[in-house]
C-alpha cells in the first residue's frame, strides 16, 4: 500500500483521523501554501486560504471518492479556495485588464514578505504576461515541482499539451529575462 493510500485509510478512520491529519499537514502544508500564495500573492492572504483549505479537507475527507489521488484532490481544493478568495476580494473599479494585472503586481511588490530584487520583479512581470493556462502550468511544473503526469491529472489536460505549454513558457522567460 502506498504512503498516500495508507494516510487516506487513517484519515477515514475516526479513531486515527486526528493523528493522520497532523501527518497530512506535515507532508502537504508547505507545498499547498506556495501553490496558494502564487495565486493570492501576499503571505497574509495565503495564510487565510491555507487554513480554509485544510479545514475543508478535514471536513470532506470522508466524502473523498478516490476518483483522483489525494494529492490532486487537495490541490484542487486549494485552487478553488484561492479563486473563491479572489472573487470575494476583487475590486470592481478597473477600466481594463492591464490595470488589474499591474494592481496585482503592486500588491505583491508592496507585501511585507516580498523581498525581490530587480531580476525577480522582472520574472514576476514576465510570468504575469502569460495566459492563465501557461501561468498555471509553469508554476505547477517549475515551482511546485509536480510531474507532467500529476499536472495532467489535476488540470485534465494531456501531457503532450502540458509539455508544449511549459517549454514555450520557459523559452519566453529565458529570452525576456536578458532584455
Amino acid at each position, binding site marked *: 500500500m502506498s504512503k498516500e493510500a495508507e494516510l487516506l485509510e487513517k484519515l477515514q478512520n475516526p479513531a486515527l483521523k486526528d493523528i493522520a*491529519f*497532523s501527518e497530512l*499537514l*506535515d507532508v502537504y*502544508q*508547505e*507545498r499547498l*501554501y*506556495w501553490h496558494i*500564495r*502564487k495565486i493570492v500573492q501576499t*503571505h497574509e492572504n495565503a*495564510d487565510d486560504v*491555507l*487554513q480554509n483549505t*485544510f*479545514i475543508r479537507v*478535514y*471536513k470532506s475527507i470522508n466524502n473523498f471518492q478516490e476518483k483522483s489521488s489525494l494529492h490532486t484532490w487537495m490541490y484542487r481544493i486549494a485552487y478553488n479556495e484561492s479563486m473563491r478568495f479572489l472573487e470575494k476580494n476583487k475590486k470592481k473599479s478597473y477600466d481594463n485588464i492591464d490595470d488589474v494585472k499591474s494592481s496585482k503586481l503592486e500588491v505583491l511588490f508592496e507585501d511585507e*514578505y*516580498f*523581498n*525581490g*530584487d530587480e531580476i*525577480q*520583479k522582472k*520574472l*514576476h512581470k514576465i510570468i504575469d504576461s502569460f495566459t492563465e493556462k501557461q501561468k498555471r502550468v509553469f508554476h505547477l511544473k*517549475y*515551482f*511546485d*515541482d509536480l510531474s507532467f503526469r500529476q499536472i495532467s491529472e489535476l488540470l485534465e489536460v494531456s501531457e503532450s499539451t502540458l509539455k508544449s505549454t511549459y517549454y514555450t513558457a*520557459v523559452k519566453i*522567460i*529565458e529570452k525576456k*529575462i*536578458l532584455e
Partner: protein
Amino acid sequence: MKKNTSIKSDKKFLKKGISDVTQLHKEYLGTDIPADYFENSKLSILNKINSETSTGKFLKEEKSDITKHHKNYLGKEIPEDYFKKSKSSILNAIKEDALVEQKPKKQLVFYLRPQFKFIAAAAILFLLTLSIWLQNSESKNNFDDITIEELALEDDVLIKSLLVEDSDLDEFTDATLFNEVVVKAEIKEQKMDDLILNSLILEDSLLDNYMDKELVETIIL
C-alpha cells in the same frame, strides 16, 4: 688534481629557486605563451560562465527546497517558523469547529415557535367569531326553542295554543291549568300575606286606599 667544475656545473642544470612557473617552463621546456595570456584568459573564462548562465540556464533544474526556491526566484519570503505555527493554528481551528458542532442546538419553547404563533392567532380569531355568532343566534326569537311550560305561562293562552303541536296539546293543557289555578293562586295568597303584614303598620284610614279591587275579589273568592 683539480676537480672538473664543468661537471659540477652540469649537475646544476635543473636550477632551483625559480619561482616563476612560466619562466621555468619557458627555460626548460621551450614552451611559450602569448603576451598577457593569463589576464586575457581570466576574462575569457568569466565571459564564458556569464554567457552560459544567460542562455537557457536562468531557470535552474537543480532546485533547493521549495521555500528557498520561491525566495531565490520570486523574492517571496515567509515569517520564521511559519509552517510550525500554521499547523498549530489549523489544528486549533478544527478543534474549535468540532466543539461548535457538538453544542446542542438551542430549542425554541413550543409556544414561541413562529408556526405556533400563527396557529394560536388563527384559533383566537375563530373563537371570537364563533362567540359573536353564537350570541347573535341566541338572541333570535326561535319558536322551536320555547318550551311548553313557557308557552303556558303566557297570558294569551288561546294565541299561544296555536303554536303548540297537536301531539303536545295535552301537555300544554296540563301546564296551562297548573299555571292558571295553582301558580296564580299561590301568587295571590302571597300578596294577601304581604297585605296583612303591611296593614298592621298602616292607619285604618289608609286601609281602604290600600285595598285594591283585585284584592277584594281575592278575599271574596
